[in-house]
């Protein structure tokens, strides 16, 4: 039995229960929508029995499927571009000195702090102005006109995704010792090789994290997308928002459940991989963290000391 001071036990209990509360808060709405995706009653509020008909209906619902495809496509492209641009930006800001660095940083921070709705209306104004002028200039017929749609959505998404990627990558760059890169260069690697062989692998978690965040933000964006979308570019949030005029259809719950399930599976898979890797690794190196867990490391250190002492005679 481990004795603990009552106050500390109370604090642990408080922290633990608050955390549980937060997760409950997060997941009750998700549980509701999962439940409703299996609800026979079309209008929510009553339980009309279990059914999977909404899932089969979903596959016949071209609008939702197309919207989901659009969302995914836009998110993938925007994320891909943003990862490259964002990583470059963060490298420039963190590893290079140049005039106007602060100003550059502030521009990068703009998408994070700019109110979404303002960005949305500003982009609507901007695109309607510039696309109109461009079309006049190019004198194109209506058939191949430049217009709002997936390209404009992607342009907008790339911008805020880039900013988020840059911020996340920057944070992992900052924990990376620059002497590591200098060492690589000292060993004869050119800047390019250094980046691919040393810098990128070290900041990979940051890059992946940034990509994940960017993907999520792009997938879920409603306000900005709403203002810059065009023909054939309806994304899932916009489609769902349109449906809210009546009551949300069970198919929407079904597709949300599917997305939720897929992302959970994906992330749980990643977690399993990570845990396997870390278990393998921990057989070699154990974390040197806190007192009670420390014993293995201490035991090894003891051995080392002994060896040292015994090695003398």
């Amino acid at each position, binding site marked *: 039995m481990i004795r603990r001071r009552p106050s500390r036990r109370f604090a642990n209990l408080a922290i633990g229960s608050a955390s549980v509360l937060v997760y409950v808060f997060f997941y009750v709405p998700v549980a509701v929508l999962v439940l409703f995706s299996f609800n026979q009653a*079309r*209008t*929510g*509020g*009553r339980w009309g029995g279990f059914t999977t008909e909404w899932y089969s209906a979903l596959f016949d619902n*071209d*609008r939702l499927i*197309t919207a989901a*495809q*659009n969302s995914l*496509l836009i998110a993938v*492209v925007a994320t891909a571009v943003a990862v490259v641009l964002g990583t470059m930006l963060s490298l420039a800001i963190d590893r290079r000195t140049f005039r106007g660095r602060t100003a550059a940083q502030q521009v990068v921070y703009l998408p994070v702090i700019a109110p979404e709705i303002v960005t949305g209306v500003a982009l*609507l104004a901007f*695109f*309607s102005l510039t*696309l*109109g002028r461009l*079309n006049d200039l190019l004198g194109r017929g*209506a*058939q*191949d*006109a*430049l*217009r*709002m*749609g*997936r*390209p404009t959505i*992607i342009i907008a998404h790339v911008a805020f995704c880039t900013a988020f990627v840059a911020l996340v990558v920057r944070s992992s760059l900052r924990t990376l010792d620059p002497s590591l890169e200098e060492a690589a260069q000292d060993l004869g690697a050119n800047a390019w090789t250094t980046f691919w062989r040393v810098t990128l692998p070290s900041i990979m978690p940051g890059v992946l994290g940034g990509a994940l965040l960017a993907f999520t933000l792009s997938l879920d964006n409603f306000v900005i997308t709403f203002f810059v*979308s*065009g*023909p*054939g*570019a*309806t994304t899932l949030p916009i*489609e769902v*928002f*349109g*449906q*809210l*005029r*009546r*009551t949300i259809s069970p198919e929407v719950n079904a597709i949300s459940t599917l997305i939720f399930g897929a992302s959970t599976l994906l992330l749980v898979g990643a977690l399993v991989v990570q845990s396997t890797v870390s278990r393998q690794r921990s057989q070699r190196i154990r974390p040197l963290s806190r007192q009670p867990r420390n014993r293995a490391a201490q035991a090894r250190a003891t051995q080392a000391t002994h060896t040292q002492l015994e090695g003398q005679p």
Partner: protein
Amino acid sequence: MTTSTNKANRAVWLRLLAGLTAFAIIVAACGDDDDDSADATTTTVDSMPEAPTSEADAETPDADAEMPDAESPMSERCGDPDRLGDSINFLNWADYIDEAVLEMFEEECGVSVTMDTHVANEEAIAKVDAGNSGYSLVIVTDYAVEIMSSQGLLQELDMGEIPNAANIDPNQMDPYYDPGNVYSLPYQYSTTGLAFDETAFSTPPTSYSAIFDENSHCGSSSLLEDQREVLGAALVYLGYDWNEVSQAAHDEALDLVLESRDCVTGFDSANYIGNLASGEVLVAQSWGFAAGIAYLDNPNIRYIIPEEGGTIWQDNFLIPADAPDPYTAHVLINYMLEPDIGALITEFTIGYTPNLTVPPLLSDGYYEVIAGAGLELTDDIRERLVWQVRSEEHSIFAETWSEVIAAG
């Protein structure tokens, strides 16, 4: 042998790469091309393995070869096959058409319809106003037609291409917003009034007092989230005209709305339908068709046009001035004015059809809802209905409404 396999492999790989590049380019640059580009992309990628070495011919020949097949059994409802495009972008109110109609049109005429939806007329206007919206056919409500035509955003309809226009109820033609139907033809129309749960009232309400009078059903009533409808209702309740623009009248109407603000569950144009069905809301200012939808879930729902009056509104087909394919749009309008198609649409929307050939085709179910929910549009009721007018001077509605927004 080995070499050739390698070569073949490499070729496949290169083609795949090219395909993917094409994919990326299509995605990044040509989201605006005429076909649904998701389909176009799929075709390109699919055709990759068997496509010959040249990349130029990857796109058209197959499609062209297939087109006549699709066209040959084409009915006369599809207009001139030579002028008909193969796809069209269509902007409609959300949840306002049976999607089967679009599939039928595609099957019958070989035109794929990409429908996008809007949730406000203003949204549709803004999209078209931005220029090169890509939409050949747009559906908006009455006053929006007037605004768009005054801005030169619309092109005149060629009635020669829309023979079915002759089917339209003369009552619904020649509206105030488009005299002579130069730019628009009616799609569906409905009214705005009150919907209520019959069981909650000993005597059915006949007036907006059911909402504006604090004592009745406080906490279970709802007003639309629409400045014109709410303020209009308040104005007529106070004895003014629905389209009144005087400051004094608006001051009074504002006070009334702000008072009832604490009583209504919300200003809500969407959720009240479900709430009526579930009993959470007992009386609501409502679109006519919405009362019908609520009735489907809760047969106790009734709809009235209050004695002070209500609005009539009509959604319309129109073709933007810069529509990429006006001809196909005309064909689609004509198609949707076919009796069977019109019936499909009206059965779905539970609105009123302006198409005189449609009523005989509507199901008993439809009439049951109309009769049961009290949605019949008699001449007596028609007299109480007004059209909402929208011009510069009506900006006072927005000013008054911003007070409502500011209040909470």
